[in-house]
């Protein structure tokens, strides 16, 4: 029991190195990961491939175990959005019983360049800027606001009319004519 655990812990201390190669094979992107340990290619080691994104890594496919030559071949889809035409591919060995965790990355000119369609920036819409509100919206809002405030201003003007009618000469005038 003790002998077995010592063997296991010694085995976990092995370092592995991953080397990435990128190739394009008839309408497919192929990325090959060569895993070596102390210069010797090792087989049956699961490798995870992922693409670097803004807040994390996007895994590509499942973990593929290296074959007898120590190579794991991945197919990378053609339509991954790239940053300035480049993708950062990351290959990792994680939680393997024989090797400690390693990671390698490489930058390659793959991926789709995203062109933003800004054709409707100048359009009037409800989500646009202050000066580009829809015309119907502006008219109806101003109409409602104008009607309400117009009534309020009318009410204030009537109060001033009351004041004007309260002047003594106006009352005299009223009394004379009636």
């Amino acid at each position, binding site marked *: 029991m003790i002998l077995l655990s010592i063997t296991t812990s010694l085995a976990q201390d092995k370092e592995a190195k991953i080397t990435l190669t990128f190739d394009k094979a008839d309408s497919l992107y192929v990325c090959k990961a060569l895993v070596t340990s102390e210069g010797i290619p090792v087989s049956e080691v699961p490798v995870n491939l992922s693409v670097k994104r803004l807040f994390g890594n996007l895994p590509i496919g499942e973990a593929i175990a290296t074959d007898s030559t120590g190579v794991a071949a991945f197919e990378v889809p053609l339509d991954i959005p790239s940053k300035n035409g480049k993708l950062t591919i990351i290959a990792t060995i994680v939680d393997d019983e024989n090797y400690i965790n390693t990671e390698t990355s490489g930058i390659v000119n793959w991926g789709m360049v995203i062109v933003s369609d800004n054709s409707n920036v100048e359009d009037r819409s409800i989500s646009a800027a*202050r000066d580009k*509100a829809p015309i119907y919206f502006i008219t109806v809002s101003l109409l409602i*606001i104008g009607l309400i405030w117009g009534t*309020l201003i009318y*009410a204030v003007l009537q*109060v001033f009319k009351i004041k004007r009618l309260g002047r003594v000469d106006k009352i005299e005038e009223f009394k004379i004519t009636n």
Partner: protein
Amino acid sequence: MSEDINITETTNKHETFTQEEYMVMKSDLLRPIEKIGKAGKIWIAFLITVFLAGVFAYYVQETRGKYTTISLRDYTMWGIYISNFLFMVAIGLVGVLMSAILKLTHFEWYRPLSRIAEVIAIGAILFAGISIVVAMGRPDRLFNLILYGRIQSPIIWDVIGISTDLVASLILLFIPLIPSLITCRNNLKNLPKWQLKMYNFLSFGWQGTPEQWKILKKTMRILTILLIPLGILICTITAWLFATTLRPEWDSTNFGAYFVSNGFLLSAAVMILATFIFRKAYNLEKYLTEMHFDKLGQALVLMALIHGYFNINEYLIPAYKMSSLHENHLLSLFIGKDALFYWSVVIFGIIVPFLLPLFPKMRKPIPLTIISVIVLIAGWFRLYLIVIPGLLQPYLPIQDVPESWKHYFPSLVEITIVTATFAGLLLIVTVFSRLFPIISVWEVAEGELEGKEEITNYK
């Protein structure tokens, strides 16, 4: 024989409204302005103290930074300031209900209540706006709302609406006040000179000529008609601040009606409370009679029914569907961590005002006031339940954040400031009632003179 006497009694009783009765009414209604007793002074001093505590708390909030003093975080960026704002806007409908709707539908018992309702509405709208400014992260950028605001934004609609409602309520308070100001000036000779000067200035040369009365009545009528859609519009726009989002709790077509019906319910409750307080404090039992409490109790039942209807629409149908978007929030409200809260609010806020005032004994002043206080407290918490659980269940689920961001409890600074807004509202109402007659003398006299059926034949 006895029938003859009865006939003459009922026909003579309110045919003439003697000069003596008018003098008694005037002196009753003007007395609070003349005399202020010890209790009155202590009350005003207490309110000023609480208000100043709130001002100090706001100073602490602004100088020590909001992160340390208040509990608002990335997800709960609206806390009790905003639920207080909603409460104040809901109460602001009391002017619409008590002053405008009753007046236009010829329910004559509105007469003593209308000015009280208008003052409460003005104070409430004012402190609604103040609650918003207190909640702003950068209050120095307040004018950016006007300079750079987009007309497509619900927040801008709310800013325009609140300010319009404030101005409209002020004008509608002021115009019927004009005849009362001359009454004050003529009858209260012992007041300080500045006060008499103020009455003179504000009365705008009112002489009581027929022409002036005509203009006054016409303007009042137009403004009263305007106030009803305006008040309802303001409350609906406030609801749309929430309903124009995609959050599970707020993504509801029912919100406008829900908020307006809530506003009417809380307005009826606050009117009952205010009527009771003024009746007791200023000895106005002859004008704020038991009939008023009876009618207000019936209004409370009606508003509770209407609000209960919209409440069922708001919660039962989404619960029936239990779509995955709404599931977490609905289950937490009905059987989860907010369950006790939610069901207490429903029971005390809707079922109690619906059931209890159905009994005539419960429509007496004291029981009805207790019910209305319960309704107001439940109403405040109902709006808390709309804001905070809604914020804690955003459209994209909360992930990878510190644990403290997933909960909200108001801090001491926030509680102080919210209490200060209530104190400020009460202060405005109290100070107004000490400077101007809180019951409109000429409107009540007009009602007596015309001898309205429902007032004389009240059983």
